[in-house]
C-alpha cells in the first residue's frame, strides 16, 4: 500500500504581529491626540514669537474673521455665549477661557469679548496663538 505524502501546505501567515502594530498605533493616537472642539468656520490663530504652554480643558471661544462667534465648536450668539459662560463659571470659578481668534479678526470683535468674559468672573482668559515657525 503506497501512501502518498500529503503535499506540504505553506504555513499560514501569522497575523498576530499585525495586530500588535495596529494596536500600538491606535494607542499612540489615543494618547497623543487631545479631543478639542474646532471652530465651525475657518480660523487661523495669530502667530506669535512668545506664548506659554496651552493647558487642556476650559472653554474655547472662537472668533472668526467676520466676527462670528462659537463656543466649543458650536456657533452661538453673544447673549447666549455670556449666559453659558456665566453658568460654567458659576460651576467652576477657576475655569480657563481660551479666546481662539482668527488673525484677521478685528479687535473691536475680540477685545470687548475679553472684557465681558472677565466681567463674568473669569480669572484666566488667554488668547490662543500659533508659535512662529510652526508648520
Amino acid at each position, binding site marked *: *500500500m503506497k501512501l502518498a505524502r500529503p503535499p506540504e501546505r505553506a504555513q499560514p501567515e501569522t*497575523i*498576530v504581529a*499585525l*495586530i500588535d502594530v*495596529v*494596536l500600538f*498605533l*491606535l494607542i499612540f*493616537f*489615543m494618547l497623543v*491626540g487631545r479631543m*478639542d472642539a*474646532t471652530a465651525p468656520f475657518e480660523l487661523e*490663530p*495669530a*502667530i*506669535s*514669537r*512668545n*506664548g*506659554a*504652554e*496651552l493647558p487642556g480643558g476650559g472653554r474655547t471661544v472662537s*472668533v472668526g474673521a467676520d466676527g462670528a462667534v462659537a463656543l466649543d465648536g458650536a456657533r452661538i450668539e453673544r447673549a447666549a455665549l455670556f449666559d453659558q459662560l456665566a453658568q460654567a463659571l458659576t460651576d467652576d470659578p477657576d475655569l480657563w477661557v*481660551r*479666546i481662539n*481668534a*482668527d*488673525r*484677521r*479678526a*478685528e*479687535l*473691536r470683535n*475680540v*477685545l*470687548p469679548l*475679553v*472684557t465681558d*468674559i*472677565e466681567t463674568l468672573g*473669569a*480669572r*484666566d*482668559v*488667554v*488668547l*490662543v*496663538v*500659533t*508659535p512662529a515657525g*510652526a*508648520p
Partner: protein
Amino acid sequence: MRLRRQTRTSPAISLVSMIDVLLIMLVFFMVTSTFLNLRMLPMARTAEATAAGRPAPTDTPILIRIDAEGVLHLQGRAFAGDGLTGALREMLDQAPERTVLVFPSGHAQTQALVDAIDRIAASGATRLRVIRVEGGS
C-alpha cells in the same frame, strides 16, 4: 498498519474581525485628529497673581497706538517691522519698570496686536496693558 486519526483541533478564534475593528478605529483617529501646535498669551489674570510682590508703577507710562492698518505709533512716530523694539528699549533702559500701554484701533486685526505684544516683549518691557476698545472704532 494502524493509522491513528488525527485529533481534530478545535478551530482557533478568528482574529481577522479584531484587526478590522482596530484598523477602522485607527483610520478614524488618523482622519479626525489634527495635530495643532498652539500656545497662549494671557489676556486677563487674577489680580492676586499679577500684583503679588510688585510695587505700583510710578513712572509715566509709554503709550503705543495701533492704527487700523496695524502700524505702530510711538511718540507720534510710525514704526514698521521691528523698529519699535529698539526705540522702546532705549526708553526702558532708563526706567525698566515703566508701564507700556497699548491703544489698538478697533479695526486693527488681532495679528497686529499680537505683533505689537511680541515687539514690546522683545524690548524688555515687563508691564504691559492693552486699553480695550468698547465696540465701534
